[in-house]
């Protein structure tokens, strides 16, 4: 739990224990259901969770890629997900981002948004950003244009035709260019970047989207050690204002960034805890090393 959540909990407890004022209801004057009005499209994290997956299952041709998976993520959390190949890590991301529909189960963004009712671009607009396993950038466009396209703004056809960067957006772009260390190659075609730089550009595009939740599939694959360290620093700096789910195989990277690690195996959660805890978990050792 983050300190922020602890504080929220303390406040609620305080309200619960406070003596009822004259004429107040039994609930201590807290008017259940009226305390907060749900707004359409707004992510409601008042219950301390930004993402819920409950009993999600999906199978492809009889193969159960995800098997009764339940998982939730807190706002501002950085969750690492590990697991052997075929454990369902990428499929899980596909489900959250609307690419794959589960056979059963529920997926909620905040307490009110049922993600299964939306498609990919709507989910992206709501504030879930995704980085693919293989870096995916627009190769024929410049670094600058790549970031500009990802910018959080109206994505309608008409507004794209008449779009002009305002100065706040320019500042944001410049800031992200610095963050991803590509400020000197703004005009370069993205296709000419190195593998690691493409990874960074894609992360930069996510930052331009300013998502509430970032899903990162093997973000440091193909990066040099130095780049990996910088990526770790970046993610740690991001987690204050965003929630992150990181799927990675690189254990040293996970050690650097992780607070809580979830181990997936055969489409379900095998273990959860700090990296040290899961590394000492017998079931995990068994899965990774074989019997």
């Amino acid at each position, binding site marked *: 739990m983050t300190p922020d959540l602890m504080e929220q909990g303390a406040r609620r407890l305080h309200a619960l224990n406070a003596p009822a004022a004259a004429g107040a209801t039994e609930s201590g004057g807290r008017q259940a259901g009226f305390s907060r009005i749900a707004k359409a499209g707004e992510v409601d994290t008042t219950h301390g969770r930004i993402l819920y997956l409950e009993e999600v299952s999906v199978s492809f041709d009889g193969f159960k890629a995800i098997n009764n998976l339940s998982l939730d993520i807190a706002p501002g959390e950085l969750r690492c997900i590990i697991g052997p190949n075929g454990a369902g890590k990428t499929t899980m991301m596909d489900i959250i981002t609307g690419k794959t529909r589960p056979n059963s189960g529920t997926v909620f963004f905040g307490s009110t948004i049922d993600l299964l009712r939306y498609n990919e*671009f709507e989910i*992206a607009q709501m504030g879930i950003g995704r980085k693919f396993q293989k870096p995916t950038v*627009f190769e024929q466009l410049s670094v600058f*244009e790549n970031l500009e396209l990802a910018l959080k703004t109206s*994505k309608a056809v008409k507004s*794209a035709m008449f779009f*002009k960067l305002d100065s706040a957006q320019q*500042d944001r772009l*410049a800031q992200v260019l610095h963050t991803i260390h590509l400020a000197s190659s703004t005009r370069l075609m993205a296709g000419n970047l190195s593998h690691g730089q493409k990874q960074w550009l894609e992360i930069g*595009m996510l930052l331009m989207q300013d998502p509430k939740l970032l899903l990162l599939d093997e973000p440091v694959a193909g990066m040099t050690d130095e780049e990996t360290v910088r990526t770790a620093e970046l993610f740690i700096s991001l987690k204050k204002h965003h929630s992150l789910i990181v799927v990675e195989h690189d254990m040293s990277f996970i050690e650097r960034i992780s607070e809580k690690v979830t181990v997936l195996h055969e489409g379900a959660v095998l273990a959860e805890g700090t990296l040290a805890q899961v590394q000492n978990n017998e079931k995990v050792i068994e899965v990774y090393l074989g019997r």
Partner: protein
Amino acid sequence: MSAPLNLPAPAPLMSRRGWGAFLVALIIVCMLAPLLNLVVPESSVFHLSDFAVSLIGKIMCYAICALAMDLIWGYTGILSLGHGLFFALGGYAMGMYLMRQIGLDGNYKSGLPDFMVFLDLKELPWHWLGSASFAFQMAMVVMAPGLLALVFGFFAFRSRIKGVYFSIITQALTFAAMLLFFRNETGFGGNNGFTDFKRILDIPIAQPSTRMVLFVLTGLTLLGFYLFSRWLVQSKFGRVLQAIRDAESRVMFSGYNPVAYKLTIWVISAVMCGIAGALYVPQVGIINPGEMSPANSIEMAIWTAVGGRATLIGPIVGAFAVNGAKSWFTVAFPEYWLYFLGAMFIAVTLFLPQGIVGLTRTIMRKLSAHKQGSQNGAKHDA
């Protein structure tokens, strides 16, 4: 925290040289061509023959189609092999009006177009009711291809039909339409189509000044569409199209709805083709279902590829180059034209992926690099 950074300024619509070339083209179309055709006497070497006017006018219509192909294929990566259909629909909409303009001067001296008399019709079919009105038929020039593209595109793009499957379906679409228009019952003159036009807006269509007006109009439309396309591809909308071509999933996960973007450019492209068809018919004097044959649509793709995809100017150059070659070749070696066309397409695909324009750009770059190199060398010598 971030230091001021020199972000690239938005590119102007065209460079100074581009505007210069545009102005020259405008002068040629609007002043030079009419002057050389109508004022300069036929005996002079500078006279522009009526044949040349109609040929260039025709090729300019093709160039509009090539431009439309470039938007959908070059920039968005969707290869349509059915654009001939939109071209023909625009042509038919114009042709219907021209048929009604014949009035009582047809072979049968009837108020109905000749083919209807021939088919023993007593009154106009329902879909001909608005055909006497120029404004209505001009609206149909835009609406017919536009609506068809909208409906077809909506279902195709929503079902995420891509790549070669999309190309094959568009090809089938134009083929099916051709078969439909071949039938007399469809009410568009069957395999003869429309011809023998007499007037447009009550002005005799064959007189030189009318032909010249049509020529100038076609040229202006081409230039106008060129500017419009440039504006489109240089806007963020255009960059989203290129992004769809390169990595559609990333576009989607960036919050864009690719269906809306593809549908928009698809309809724009179809309407451009329709307008080209409407300009083509009065200049050529005939429209028949042959315009919908699959080969016509494939040729459009060839013009675009030969000129250079995703360059806008390339497809225009390609339309002129291929059709110029065609008009010479079909006279000199009429039997071998299709072989030549095929060979040209293969050669361009294999050796010139960027087309003529790409080749020219590469040569220019090398030349200027060479020049700089030799200048530097000269300095060293001195």
